[in-house]
């Protein structure tokens, strides 16, 4: 045995990750422990840094579109949507309604898919093994729709600046409605497994409480913020596409704990189905491309555009100098800023809760590190 071991120390410092089953990729959390109680955490990120923002400066606006899919690879459609909308805003282009509704349908499907991954992995982290297989089964149906639409399942590159590359295939509406009908009962199935499960409640109630003030101060957005009781959804507050024309509710939590965030996301999936149904109804014929040229050359200027991605506010700050290359593209990833709240949420809890809290924040490291 070596002379001095960690057993001599009063405080145990342990590295969770970068290779760890519950850190959703390559997150490394340095935990300071007293027994199993967490005294402090420090997130060490950047293991997946690819310099996406630098790449953007060396590509044209259109060429950069596929790259954004690789950030939050669990929600490529919304990532792409945020970027193309930001550039459209810079160009000052309106896109036709058919394209808008198509985007909304795909984005909401993506939200469902992303939440399904969250639910499965979150439950798996807490030790419930089965939901992950059910959620992946349903996610598969979403991916099939994506695949039939644009040929890709994961990094879809579904949208183009100015509209859509492809019009919808025959039977798209039917497939989407079929999925909605199929999916709603499945949410009940997940809830049967978890919502009233005493162990699940004990593992999530009062765990990782984030008050509304703390959440806002820490820049937390998305379901995590709503779980803390702040009724703020960019789709409602500053509608983009045609979100102002559809009806949906913004579910909020009360206590700001892990259980509330779970409920919020479950409710959001139902709302997404609701939005999808309305969009399909309004999906009239028409052009799918706005008035954008082959070469995208926005005027000099800068925009900040953000959308409600499944994980929170996804913002793009695009600076143009009037050339075909963006001068600067900044991505405001929801995961990064939500992850910053981990320390606040995890302090004083046990190791097992850290895992639950990482799960409830719903991070994707591709997006955190970019």
């Amino acid at each position, binding site marked *: 045995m070596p002379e001095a071991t960690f057993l001599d120390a009063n405080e145990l410092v342990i590295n969770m990750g970068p290779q760890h089953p519950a850190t959703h990729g390559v997150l490394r959390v340095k935990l300071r422990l007293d027994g*199993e109680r967490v005294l402090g955490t420090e997130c060490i990120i950047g293991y997946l840094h690819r310099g996406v923002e630098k790449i953007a400066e060396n590509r044209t606006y259109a060429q950069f579109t596929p790259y954004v899919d690789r950030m939050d690879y669990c929600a490529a459609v919304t990532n792409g949507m945020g970027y193309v909308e930001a550039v459209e805003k810079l160009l000052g282009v309106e896109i036709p309604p058919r394209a808008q509704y198509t985007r909304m349908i795909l984005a909401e499907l993506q939200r469902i898919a992303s939440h399904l991954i969250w639910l499965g992995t979150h439950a798996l982290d807490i030790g419930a*093994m089965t939901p992950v297989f059910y959620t992946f089964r349903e996610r598969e149906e979403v991916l099939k729709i994506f695949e039939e639409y644009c040929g890709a399942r994961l990094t879809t590159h579904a949208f183009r600046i100015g509209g859509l590359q492809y019009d919808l295939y025959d039977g798209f509406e039917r497939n989407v409605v079929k999925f909605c009908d199929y999916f709603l009962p499945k949410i009940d199935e997940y809830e049967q497994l978890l919502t009233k499960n005493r*162990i699940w409640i004990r593992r999530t109630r009062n765990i990782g409480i984030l008050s509304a003030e703390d959440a806002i101060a820490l820049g937390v957005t998305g379901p995590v913020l709503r779980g803390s009781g702040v009724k703020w959804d960019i789709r409602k507050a500053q509608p983009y596409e045609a979100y102002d024309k559809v009806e949906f509710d913004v579910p909020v939590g009360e206590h700001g704990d892990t259980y509330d965030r779970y409920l919020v996301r479950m409710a959001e999936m139902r709302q997404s189905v609701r939005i999808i149904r309305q969009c399909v109804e309004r999906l009239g014929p028409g052009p799918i491309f706005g008035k954008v040229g082959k070469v995208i050359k926005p005027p000099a200027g800068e925009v900040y555009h953000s959308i409600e991605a499944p994980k929170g506010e996804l913002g793009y700050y695009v600076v143009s100098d009037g050339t075909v290359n963006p001068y600067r593209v900044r991505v405001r990833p929801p995961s990064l800023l939500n992850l910053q709240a981990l320390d606040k949420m995890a302090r004083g809890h046990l190791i097992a809760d850290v895992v639950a809290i990482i799960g409830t924040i719903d991070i994707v490291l591709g997006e955190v590190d970019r």
Partner: protein
Amino acid sequence: MAESAFKFVTATPLLLALIKILIVFAVVSGIVAYLVYMERKVLAFMQARLGPMRVGPWGLLQPVADGLKLLLKEDIIPAGADEWLFLLAPAISIFAAFTVFAAIPFAGNFFVTDINIGLLFILGVSSLGIYGIILGGWSSNSHYPLLGALRSAAQLVSYEVAAGMALVGVLLISNSLSMVDIVNRQFGMGVWNVFLQPLAFIIYLIAAVAETNRNPFDLPEAESELTAGFHTEYSGFRFALYFMAEYTNMVVVSCIAVTLFLGGWLRPFANFAALDFLKFTPIVAFLGAAVFVLWLGLKSSIALDRYFFMVLAAGCVVLAILVAYPPVLSAIQGIFWFGAKVLAFLYAFIWYRATFPRYRYDQLMDVGCRWMIPLALANLIVTAVGRYFWLSHHVATTVTWLGR
């Protein structure tokens, strides 16, 4: 020749015991290997997937492949580990798990030995298994294993108490520590202990899951928290030993539960002559297995699988015919019912795993110390009082009357 050999064996207790031990060891090892397969299959079907399908027809050779793989892997000893203890620890675990089988009566006519303190022996030896876990976790000189080991120690100690007290209730009714006597007593009373000690049964059931480190109490190896818990640093065959020990422990606690609460090798309603037709269940079971296997085979699109399953079905039919032969049928009764009950228990273990999230460490202790131990204690007191005044005499006579 064969006859004289048989006489020699029966006349030499040591040799007889050795042969029995070999049989039990081989059978239990096989069962454990296929328990893993069963777990994977059952979980798979509960989770909308197929489970192992590649190695052999329906993945039936998967345990063999797994075993070979683990045998061939490098046996890593981490730098800074306490080498001796590190090597010894898995052996302790598996040793404790297997030794217990010496005192378990698989049937009225088949057990390795019947010691008059059988239950104490079982409890004592199976508790030794914890040393394997603690030493393994500690000697790895690594954070996660240490945390896993500590959790395990706390968990086992607290749940052992609850389980032990639950079992004492049974002892009070049975008047004996010998496992064979306990079963015989249930036969004599004509009622399984589970109906006399329902609370004890439930407490034991929960404690058993905790003691075997199974979901929802699988904290010592909670994958998402502690990577692999106490065996994080183990690889190759030493890891396999831990793995086997865990599954063997599942079989052990199931055997104990069946023996103590569910009438061991007795068939349901053993005292009711009117239900004697139940003794033909083994034949039906084998025939049913044949039909099921045949159905699987016909469904399969792979020619080799089809032949294999047909042969397997034929084998089942042959077994059914063999079992139908009256002497064999009566000889096999005990082991069949024992096996069926244990299987039901194991299935329940797997079922829990598919259903429940994992308790947190402090919640687990909370459940153990604040609920299970007081309840077990209350149960013990009520049983003692009841037995003193009423139960021993009264129920026994009523039940004997019923069974007539």
